[in-house]
């Protein structure tokens, strides 16, 4: 039996479960129907979302900015409480859920950034470190992100986490990004795929 909720270090078990899903079969007549349609040259007309809907939504959201601010403050408090409880939890899944909440909400205060930074650098689970980096990317300032990226790139050994860090460098300003990539590429122990990605990013 595999515990899917706990397999943070083993995505393979979840992939294996997906591969066991039974096939979904089409109807028998599909092949004949396709043969008929192949003779037709009509093209599907693709409709687009009316811009008016987007404009209307923007107006509604704008009108409620004051109420939203109050709600945000309450949300940050709830998120901080959740994060502080999660960091003490032995369950990596719980820590992941807390950080995903932060990423989804897109808000954090200074104390939360400090907690996320600690998790990004030192958590034992690569999945948690990834979630922390993604949360920091979503909520922290560029300079806070740069600090985490530089420190983490210098020591991180998981190729997957390194790939996430490489993607995070795209949020840095150009000189900072170049410095981070150069320092990273000077490491001799890089996974070949990650090195190729880093070289590609350095070239652009």
């Amino acid at each position, binding site marked *: *039996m595999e515990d*899917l*909720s*706990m397999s943070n270090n083993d995505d393979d078990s979840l992939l294996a479960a997906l591969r066991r899903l039974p096939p*979904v079969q089409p109807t028998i007549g599909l092949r004949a129907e*396709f043969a008929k349609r*192949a003779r037709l040259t009509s093209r599907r007309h693709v409709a687009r979302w009316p811009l008016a809907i987007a404009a209307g939504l923007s107006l509604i959201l704008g009108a409620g900015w004051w109420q939203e601010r109050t709600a945000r403050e309450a949300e940050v408090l709830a998120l901080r409480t959740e994060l502080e409880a999660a960091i003490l939890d032995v369950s990596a899944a719980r820590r992941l859920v807390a950080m*995903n909440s932060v990423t989804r909400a897109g808000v954090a205060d200074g104390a939360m950034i400090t907690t996320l930074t600690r998790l990004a650098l030192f958590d034992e689970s690569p999945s948690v470190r990834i979630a922390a980096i993604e949360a920091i990317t979503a909520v922290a300032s560029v300079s806070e992100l740069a600090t985490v990226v530089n420190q983490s790139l210098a020591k991180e050994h998981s190729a997957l986490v390194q790939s996430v860090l490489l993607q995070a460098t795209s949020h840095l300003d150009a000189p900072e990004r170049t410095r981070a990539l150069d320092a990273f590429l000077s490491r001799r122990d890089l996974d070949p795929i990650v090195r190729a990605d880093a070289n*590609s990013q350095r070239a652009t």
Partner: protein
Amino acid sequence: MPLPPIADRTDRDLMLAVRGGDLAALDALFVRHHGRLYGFLARLTGNRATAEDLVQEVFLRVLRARERYHGDGSFTAWLFRIARNVAAGEYGTRRETMPLDDMVDVGAAESDPIGEMETAEDLARLERALLAVAPQHREVLLLRGVEDLSHREVGEVLGCTEGAARVRVHRALNALRNVWIDQNGGSVHVQ
């Protein structure tokens, strides 16, 4: 030298024949791949009827785009890339989906019901979770998980590097895990 029977020819050879106007080769590719493609699209859209339309549209696009096929890279990845684009267009026009239970039952009913009740139930729950994740994660889970494409092929389908594909797979699995926890609690098992 005579060509080998169609059934023995590779996807690449068949597609090169389609480029030359051989519609029998297109039919052979359809027979070979439409079931797998249908499963991908049915699970991606959550709608079986839509998936049947889309499968046909994918192969019509293969026909229209045959001049752009050069035989480099994976044919499967090329096909799924077209399918992904076709499905993306579909999301912009029709969003109605089959109720989740209907889709789940379709999958579960095709497994062996004898002596595997627990497995069938577990897989049905996994199917339900899969349908509840965001489409951008679901497509990655279907490509890497259900269809068993390599990270390189997933990258070809998504138009990104192998490393980036690996990250997207991980993120999608994380999203699926979160949905699973939401739906089933933190200690649910799949046999």
